[in-house]
């Protein structure tokens, strides 16, 4: 096992990294997929030194006494700030824990788990099991493919493009915007308190749909869906296509909009 205590801007390289764990307080952590030697570059550093360890292919970047589990309870204001850029092989699973730091993950194919407080989380071209959990940070994803879980208090989620096997979203007031396609018998389950939900699915999607809002408006562009307005619930339900997939949105006061995008067959409408 190799261990470094980094107290100044540094660049390190490693022979093999099969797993990555990063805990940061403030600053930025970026993880990029690269076919070359795994590397770590600390370009800015303020406050306490960073601890970097590399053992059995597991690369860990953290501060002393900042564990994954205790991360969100670690609320004392800190001055510790670092800007860290890491490259790992695309098939390396990663875990990032950030407080106010922002995180960028690009090109990884083995999934990513990111927990944040107020920092924004940016995911680009990540596939596999992707989970993002945040208090007030915004999560933005481009071309995410796989099983996606998102949980937040006020942070919103935006997914631009990509295809999901399962998309599970739980948020209180976060706004949810997603333009994705569904895997065969994929499922989307979104639940918010007051967060507005806007989904766009390809016109040739195949899903059993149920959109419900207690006091918000529910609308859809899919004509096969049925709208039922009752005093304290507004529901749109029915099947799109054969209904092998599943789309369910439940919200208290948020508005729900389900838009119909271009069929998957003829992509390239957006972006």
């Amino acid at each position, binding site marked *: 096992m190799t261990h470094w205590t980094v107290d100044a*801007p540094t*660049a390190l390289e490693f022979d093999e990294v099969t797993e990555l764990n990063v805990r940061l307080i403030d600053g*930025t952590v*970026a993880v*990029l997929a*690269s*076919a*070359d*030697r795994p590397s770590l*570059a600390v*370009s800015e550093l303020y406050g306490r030194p960073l601890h970097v360890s590399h053992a059995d292919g597991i690369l860990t970047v953290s501060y002393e006494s900042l564990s994954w589990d205790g991360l969100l309870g670690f609320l004392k204001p800190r001055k510790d700030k670092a*800007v860290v*850029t890491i*490259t790992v092989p695309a098939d390396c699973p990663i875990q990032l824990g950030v407080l106010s730091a*922002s995180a*960028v993950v*690009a090109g990884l194919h083995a999934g990513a788990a990111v927990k944040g407080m107020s920092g924004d989380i*940016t*995911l*680009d071209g990540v596939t596999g099991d992707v989970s993002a959990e945040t208090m007030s940070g915004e999560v*933005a*994803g*481009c071309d995410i493919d796989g099983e996606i879980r998102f949980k937040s208090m006020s942070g919103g989620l*935006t997914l*631009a*493009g990509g295809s999901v096997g399962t998309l599970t979203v739980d948020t209180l007031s976060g706004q949810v*915007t997603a*333009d994705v396609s569904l895997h065969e018998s994929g499922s989307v389950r979104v639940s918010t308190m007051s967060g507005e939900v*806007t989904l*766009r699915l390809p016109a040739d999607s195949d899903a059993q749909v149920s959109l419900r809002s207690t006091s918000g*408006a529910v*609308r859809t*562009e899919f004509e096969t869906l049925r709208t039922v307005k009752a005093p304290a619930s507004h529901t749109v339900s029915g099947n799109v296509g054969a209904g092998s997939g599943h789309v369910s949105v439940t919200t208290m006061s948020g508005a729900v*909009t389900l*838009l119909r995008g271009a069929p998957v067959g003829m992509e390239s409408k*957006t*972006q």
Partner: protein
Amino acid sequence: MTPVFRHGRLRLYLLRLLDEEPRHGYEVIRLLRDRFMGVYAPSPGTIYPRLARLEEEGLVTHDEENGRKVYRITEAGREELRSRGDEIDELEEELSASVSDIVREVREDVRDTVRSLREELTRAAREMRGAERDAREQAREQTRAARESAREAADAARDRARQAREQAREQARQAREEAFAHAHRLREEASRLRDTSKDQWGGWGNWGEWSRWSEWAGRSSRSGWPGQHDLGALRDFERLARDFVTDLRSVAWDSGTILGTDVIPTLRDILADTLDRIREEVFEIHHDEPDEDSAPPPPSDAPAPAEPPAGAQPPAAAEPPADTAPPADTAPPADTEPPGAAEPPVK
């Protein structure tokens, strides 16, 4: 991405790479690509000429190893590096900056995409809402129109109902008046009868009106009023009178002209004439008797100027055909004529 190497920097970087250890040209290329995370991949066409150039300058030299050139730095090359140490540090900084450029680019890229997506979807949602609102507006418009026409229909229906009600009320009033007139006449009749009976039978005056009436009515043989032979005849008489009133009213109604006050005197004259005729032609014979009492004639005149003329007809058509057959024949034409005469002025 901005050019990674400014002028002369690539040359310096190649020297630095060879300073670490001797390398194949291919290895140099790979290291450069590594450095830039695959974003900058110099082609052999860029690197080999530069290495050859460095060799010409005497800064590097090469050995053949398994048929491949292995480049190594010369002392002159090291000297060059040392003299440009500042530039080397700067270069290092720039190179790590170009990695963070990638990160920044990724982030900006995603952020832009996400922002434009959000705008697009928000716009689409808003448009959908707009379309929905239009549809709602239209539906509301239709509802309003429907409600409007329904209201018009209801108004018309209400008008009709009011007219019908007024007509009904009018008929009721007429009927009541007729009833009053009838009652009045009956009373007159009764008093007259009482008087006569007092004359003839004296003590009958104490009888109740009804018993007297039935008694009187029963005396059909008596040369009294033809209409009062029995109750059935009386009813016919009344009905005829009512029918006449109804006919008269419908004539006025059908004429479509406004029933002005000016037609009333004319009507009244015609009716008065008619009444006179009836009095003379229909009730002539019997008039003498009631006249004795002096009570009946004025009442029969007073209560219903419009009625007796009408009433005159029924008695003729009704019960007393034997008594008053000839006058009955003459009465109807006399009767129908007046209304007919009344019509022109109305029209």
